[in-house]
C-alpha cells in the first residue's frame, strides 16, 4: 500500500541537506508552511538557498529560518513587504544574499523545471536592469530573454486536503506557487490541514496530483493570521 503520510516532523524533514535549494510557497501570510519550516529548523540543515515570493514577515516561518542563520541566499520577487525586519537586518549586514526576479518569471521557471523544459524565452524584463547579462533573441519582431528552469532540492508545501497518495487541494489564494513548486522539487514535503480517505477528493479538482508529492504530514493549525 502506498502511504506518503508520515507521523512525525522528523520523518517529514529527513534528508534535507546543507546547501539545499528550498522552494517555499505562500503569498504574504497566506499558505505559509510554517510547521514544516519549524521542523526544518529543528532538523538543522544550513546554508540553504530559499526560493519564495517574499523575504519573510515578522519573526515566524521563513523569517525565523533566516533569523537562526540557516539561509545563505534568498531568491524572491518582492523582499520589501510590510515587516521584513529580519531579512532587512541580515541583508544590510551582508549576511544574506538576495536575487530579485520577476514574479511570473519565477513561477514559469519552476513550472519549466517540473515540465522538463530546460529553458524558455519571455518578454518579461526586456530592456530593464533585470535583463542585464541575459541572452536576448528576437522572435517575429519582438525581443525576448532566455530563462532557464529553476529546480528545487526540496519544496515545502501547505495544502488544505491530502490523501495517502499525496493528492492535494488548496484553498482560495493559498494555492499560489504550490502546484509548480511541487513539480519543480526533487523532494516535495506537504503539511496538510486535513487528511482524507483515498478516493474522497473529486478527481476533477485535485490541484496537485500525488505524482508530485513525496511526504505528507498532518498539521491542522486552523486559520492563517495575516501579519
Amino acid at each position: 500500500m502506498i502511504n506518503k503520510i508520515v507521523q512525525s516532523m522528523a520523518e517529514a524533514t529527513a534528508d534535507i541537506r546543507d546547501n539545499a535549494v528550498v522552494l517555499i510557497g505562500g503569498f504574504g501570510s497566506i499558505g505559509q508552511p510554517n510547521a514544516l519550516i519549524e521542523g526544518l529548523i529543528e532538523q538543522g540543515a544550513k546554508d540553504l538557498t530559499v526560493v519564495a515570493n517574499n523575504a519573510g514577515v515578522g519573526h515566524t516561518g521563513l523569517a525565523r529560518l533566516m533569523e537562526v542563520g540557516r539561509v545563505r541566499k534568498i531568491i524572491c520577487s518582492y523582499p520589501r513587504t510590510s515587516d521584513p525586519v529580519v531579512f532587512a537586518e541580515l541583508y544590510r549586514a551582508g549576511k544574506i544574499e538576495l536575487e530579485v526576479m520577476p514574479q511570473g518569471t519565477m513561477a514559469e521557471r519552476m513550472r519549466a523545471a517540473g515540465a522538463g523544459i530546460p529553458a524558455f524565452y519571455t518578454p518579461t524584463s526586456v530592456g530593464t536592469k533585470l535583463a542585464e547579462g541575459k541572452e536576448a533573441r528576437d522572435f517575429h519582431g519582438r525581443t525576448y530573454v532566455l530563462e532557464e528552469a529553476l529546480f528545487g532540492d526540496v519544496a515545502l508545501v501547505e495544502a488544505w486536503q491530502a490523501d495517502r497518495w499525496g493528492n492535494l487541494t488548496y484553498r482560495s489564494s493559498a494555492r499560489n506557487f504550490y502546484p509548480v513548486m511541487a513539480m519543480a522539487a526533487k523532494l516535495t514535503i506537504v503539511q496538510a490541514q486535513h487528511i482524507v480517505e483515498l478516493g474522497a477528493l473529486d478527481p476533477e479538482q485535485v490541484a496537485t496530483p500525488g505524482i508530485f508529492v513525496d511526504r505528507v504530514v498532518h498539521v491542522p493549525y486552523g486559520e492563517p493570521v495575516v501579519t
Partner: protein
Amino acid sequence: MSTKAAAETLAACKPWTREEIAARAARDIPEGWYVNVGIGIPVLLPNYIPPEREVIIQSENGILGMGPSPPDDKINRWLINASKKYVTLVPGGSYVHHADSFAMIRGGHLDLCVLGSFQVAENGDFANWTSAGDDMPSVGGAMDLAAGAKAIWLLMDHTTKNGDSKVMRRCTYPLTAVGAAKRVYTNLAVLDITDNGFAVRDLAPGLTFEALQDVTDAPLHLTN
C-alpha cells in the same frame, strides 16, 4: 520647474485626490474588460466601477474575479489580493496557480493593467519598482504585467513632494518596461501616450494647459 512653481500651480487649481484619480480611470474601463490593478492608487479603482458595469478584476496571486473587501464577519482567511489585504471572490470568479495566473498575464489576455509609477516618459517607458538608492529592489509582478497586458495605464502623482515632475522626457529611474504605458492619470491631468508623446485628454478643475506644462518635464500636446 521648482517647488515654488509646482506649489503655485497646485494652489491655482483643484488637484484630484487619490480617490478621484481612481474613479476617473474606473469610468474609462469598458464593460467586459479583464483588468489587473497594482498596489498604490490602483488598488482603489475597483471601488469606483459602476455596479451595473461588469469588469473582471484579476489579482496575480491566482484570483480571477476579485471582489471588494469583505465585512469583518465574512472574511475568508485564505483569500488576499496582491497587496496582502483580504478580498472576496465574485460569482463567476475562479482560482488558478501562479504559473497559470502569469500565463494569463504574459500571454496577452488581460485587456488592461493599472499600475502606480514613480516616473513615466513620453515614449511609454515607465519606472515603478526601484529607485537609484534602493537597496531592496522589489519587482513583484510589475514587469510581467507591463510586458503582457494589452494596455498599461498608470495612476500616479504628477510631481514628487519636492515638486519635481514625474512625467518625463526620459525616465531616470530603472525601467519596469520599455514603451509599455498607454495612458497616465495624475492628480493634475489625464494624458495619452501617442507617437508624438504626451497628449492631454483632461485637466484638473481650474488648471490650464500652460500651468500643467510648467510642472511637467516632458513637452505636452493638445489632443486633436
